[in-house]
């Protein structure tokens, strides 16, 4: 526990959001440290749940030189286990439905979902097709909706910036909003691991 304690202390000092000596317990420290990390450098994963590709290329576009999301600290990862934010496109098809759930479940808490494009928000033109579920929110909870067919990279950047802003406000405000997702079981499991 000593090692873990020192680690959190260092992280917490860096974050300048808590005073360790005030007697925060390890759980809230860990939460705050994770929240700080998420806010400073959210890692995203991109999943295409049955889109037309249009929004997907715009997402990749947002990561390339002209728009360059990386300057906001945003990195694209290959696996959901590394990611904080799921950037999702497309009206969910019956085939991808279970995959989408799986990917969402694999992401560690706290996690956020951005529905990118009109068809991810509501089903868009594909609404009513026999193989389409509707928007992303018909399968998993969504935090940010970006409409547009296709969305422009500027819109994606603005959405991500808004998400970061909201995170920051939550942290400063603390309180119940910070615990909006009640299921922090994953976090407590990690705590147990450290204790053990």
């Amino acid at each position: 526990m000593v090692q873990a304690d020192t680690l959190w202390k260092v992280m917490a000092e860096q974050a300048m959001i808590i005073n360790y000596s005030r007697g925060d317990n390890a759980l809230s420290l860990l939460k705050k440290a994770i929240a700080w990390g998420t806010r400073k450098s959210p890692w995203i994963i991109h999943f295409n749940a049955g889109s037309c590709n249009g929004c997907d290329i715009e997402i990749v576009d947002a990561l390339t030189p002209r728009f360059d999301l990386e300057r906001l600290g945003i990195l694209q990862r290959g696996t959901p286990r590394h990611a904080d934010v799921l950037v999702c496109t497309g009206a969910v098809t019956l085939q991808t439905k279970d995959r989408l759930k799986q990917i969402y479940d694999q992401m560690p808490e706290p996690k956020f979902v951005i529905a990118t494009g009109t068809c991810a928000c509501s089903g868009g033109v594909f609404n009513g097709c026999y193989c389409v579920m509707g928007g992303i929110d018909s399968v998993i909870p969504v935090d940010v909706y970006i409409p547009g067919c296709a969305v422009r990279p500027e819109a994606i950047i603005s959405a991500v910036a808004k998400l970061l802003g909201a995170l920051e406000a939550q942290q400063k405000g603390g309180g119940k909003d910070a615990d909006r997702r009640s299921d922090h079981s994953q976090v407590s499991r990690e705590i147990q691991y450290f204790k053990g």
Partner: protein
Amino acid sequence: MSEYNRVVIPIGPQHPSLKEPGCFTVTLDGEKIVDVVVGIGYNHRGLEKACESRNYIQIIYLLERICGICSHTHTTAFCQGVEELAGISIPRRAAYIRVIVAEIERLHSHLLWLGVAAHEIGFDTMFMYAWRDREAVLDILAAVGGNRVNYGINTIGGVRRDIDDSLRQDILKMTDALQEQVKYYQELALTETTLAARLAGIGKLSGEDALKYGAVGPVIRASGIDFDIRAVDPYAVYAEIPFKVITDTHADVFGRTVVRILELLESIEIIRFCIKNMPDGDIVTKAPRRIPAGEVISRTEAPRGEDIHYIRSNGTERPDRVRVRAPSEANWHAMRHMLLGQYLADAPITIAAIDPCFSCTDRAIVINSGRETELMDWPRLRQYSIDWYKKRGIDVASIKIPERRMYF
């Protein structure tokens, strides 16, 4: 090698090297690929069926969203088909605008491919370069159509937006700048030894096999066969435009890269020619809402190859059937053949080299093998289905189908 040495690796549907959901089940013997099962259909949304309940104008916007990368190609194929059914011919200026937009789209698609392919082989600098240059192309597309991806240029009977003089100057400026860059890529691809060493000899596909497996687009052209719908079955105004069909004899990923880079240069020439020779006049002719009964096959050359649309109309505002055979759909068989006997490490670039588009591919086909086939015409099929249900005690006529939810 015995069966026991084989390892089965599933790649996808969510995988870092795939931007779209597809699933490849690769069987390995050591490092060599001995079998590949391509699992697609993750992106199947049921567009062809949806077409049957929309009118012709709505379908244009729906088909545009088959694929965001070659959206213009799909609508061109569809509009051409419907125009033929309706017996109208579009103004020449409209045909020129269609060609210009199609070629600008080819520029953006090939640059996108160049970036993705470079990314697959770990050459991220080129990825960023290619995508940076692609931005200029997208700016032009946004200026022409008002949107960066689905530009909605086509309509039945012509095009919706004109290209005016100042825009033409902008396009010319863009092509000049881009030509410089593409020449640089060409030099890079041909002289950079690491690039050539990484790409040469990978994903071999002989011309014979390419024909056998029905490959299309740059894949078949890189195997030395000059098959390009723009040349063999010219549509719009391609018959009047002097252009070369680019082929290459390397028959591997390197060849496909060269073909695409040279096609970029060729597209730039086509755009310049069209801008110079664009006639004045209308951009759209009036088209009827109801399209006379008939059936038609319409083909265009998408950036990825031959795109086929089959349309059957029945005299009403809605078609009976729309079938789309997108180019990526044709390339899968060839791709499986290319992957066999390769090293696993070469799989991503081999897959990327056909420039697969899963949204285009995921169409539904029902194949009944081993049964006798017969052709049924529409009334007989209808009668057959009514009888089929009657036999089971269901009276079709009494079933009320709830109104489809409409969102437009």
